[in-house]
């Protein structure tokens, strides 16, 4: 893998819609329209999309419509639309943009089903079951995209590198931090976030420790795991192709208030506007969590990923995606920050740091 700051072709920034109680899948009436919500998936929208769509479309189907409207065309809106079509419904998507210009497309594209998906307190104990249902359903659906031309969904080897033996991450609450979401409107430490990945340990490949002989990296301790990722162009094209080939209709439309939904001809509406729901639905429980990625041209010959100290370089079909997520801040990085302008320095820092983990001969130009 070649990591060199002068080879960056893109830096993207977006806001994860962390909703304190977890994704909103409630149903409500606006005038005589039935609105089924499907928004607020934090950093887990791609990963939970199918399972979430299954729940939302199920609620829509319960009133026996022939057609539904979907508002929003990020990954959650688009999968909701397709699930509705697969159930035999006529679907029109109303949105400002198709998926390539939505916030969804500015994610990293890794299967991260419990990344900033809820705060444990506001979500309550029952949220784990709902999350697990969505995660398991989505996992099976992603398997239906494996091995297809263009690799819309794929697996790769991922190497976790460190100087010290890897310890299980501690998420104990820090008693010195007394503020929390309830008192201040924002989470104040990692322990407030819902961490649910253990619930699907039986289907997600475990990591294995590499022996010294197997370890090609400049790191004393290495773990290898298989990790699932989404190649945005191939996957988005597959989804859009299915949507339009099933006679789906797209209407460019901007909504200013929930009331405007009553202007639509469809009586049943799936509302999937992600972060935009904070304004459109005045849902102030949505907390912006900023994140950003850098991109290098695809290096299909380097079909693996490395991560170290919460910095990562993931080789995907649509490029090497670089992230620099501060290990001390963890889930708290970007919380409350709705700035959507990318900054290059942390990405370049991650590249320099990770390059030193690769064979020294390959990283000389960066570490010099």
């Amino acid at each position, binding site marked *: 893998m070649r990591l060199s700051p002068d080879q960056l072709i893109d830096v*993207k920034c*977006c806001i994860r819609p962390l909703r304190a109680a977890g994704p909103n899948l409630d149903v409500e009436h606006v005038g005589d329209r039935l609105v089924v919500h499907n928004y607020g998936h934090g950093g887990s929208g791609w990963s939970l999309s199918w399972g979430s769509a299954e729940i939302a479309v199920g609620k829509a189907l319960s009133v026996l419509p022939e057609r539904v409207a979907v508002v929003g065309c990020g990954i959650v809106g688009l999968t909701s639309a397709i699930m509705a079509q697969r159930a035999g419904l006529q679907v029109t998507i109303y949105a400002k943009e198709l998926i390539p*210009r939505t916030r969804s497309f500015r994610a990293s594209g890794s299967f991260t089903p419990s990344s900033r998906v809820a705060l444990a307190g506001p979500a309550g104990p029952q949220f784990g079951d709902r999350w697990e249902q969505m995660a398991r359903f989505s996992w099976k659906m992603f398997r239906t995209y494996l091995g297809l031309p263009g690799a819309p969904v794929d697996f790769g080897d991922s190497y976790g590198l460190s100087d010290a033996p890897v310890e299980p991450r501690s998420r104990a609450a820090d008693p010195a931090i007394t503020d929390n979401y309830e008192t201040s409107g924002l989470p104040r430490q990692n322990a407030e976030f819902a961490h649910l990945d253990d619930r699907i340990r039986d289907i997600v490949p475990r990591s294995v420790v590499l022996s010294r002989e197997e370890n090609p990296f400049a790191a004393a301790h290495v773990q290898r795991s298989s990790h699932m990722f989404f190649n945005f162009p191939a996957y988005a094209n597959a989804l859009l192709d299915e949507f339009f080939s099933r006679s789906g209709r797209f209407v*460019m439309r901007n909504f*200013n208030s929930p009331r405007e939904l009553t202007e639509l001809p469809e009586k049943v509406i799936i509302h999937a506007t992600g972060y935009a729901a904070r*304004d459109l639905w005045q849902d102030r429980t949505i907390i912006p969590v900023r994140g950003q990625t850098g991109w290098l041209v695809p290096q299909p010959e380097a079909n693996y990923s490395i991560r170290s100290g919460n910095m990562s370089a993931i080789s995907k079909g649509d490029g090497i995606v670089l992230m620099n997520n501060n290990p001390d801040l963890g889930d708290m990085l970007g919380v409350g*920050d*709705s*700035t*959507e302008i990318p900054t290059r320095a942390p990405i370049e820092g991650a590249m320099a740091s990770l390059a030193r983990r690769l064979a020294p001969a390959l990283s000389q130009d960066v570490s010099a």
Partner: protein
Amino acid sequence: MTRGRLLIVAAVAAATALTVGPPVASRSSARGVYTGAQADQGATIYAARCAMCHGRQLEGTVEIPALSGKFVANWASRPVGDLFDYIARAMPQPAPGSLSSDDNARLVAFLLRANGAPAGNQALPADRQALRRIDFDTVPPL
């Protein structure tokens, strides 16, 4: 129609008018609803608060909406108040709600001018109710 029926229709119309009050005429952005000075002030605010994301030429990016062209399709044929309210609630995105009403009106004036609406003698009011009665109309095609 008989004369009697006509009278009934007239009476009903009068009664309706009485209940609703005289209709308030909407003004159109095509008729000069802001002043040039106001739009100039808006341009300064735009440069300081908006251009970092939306671009100096209002061109936007793949990810951030342009404030001309497609912008008209999103915001025209509805009251200017909708745009004013949206900016007041949601912009600038890193610090929503941080613009004063006067500055917001100046920005809207600037955006109207940038999208072909002519200036006039009267300033655009920084008042939500008044802005509800001003329509953002498209410029007639050439």
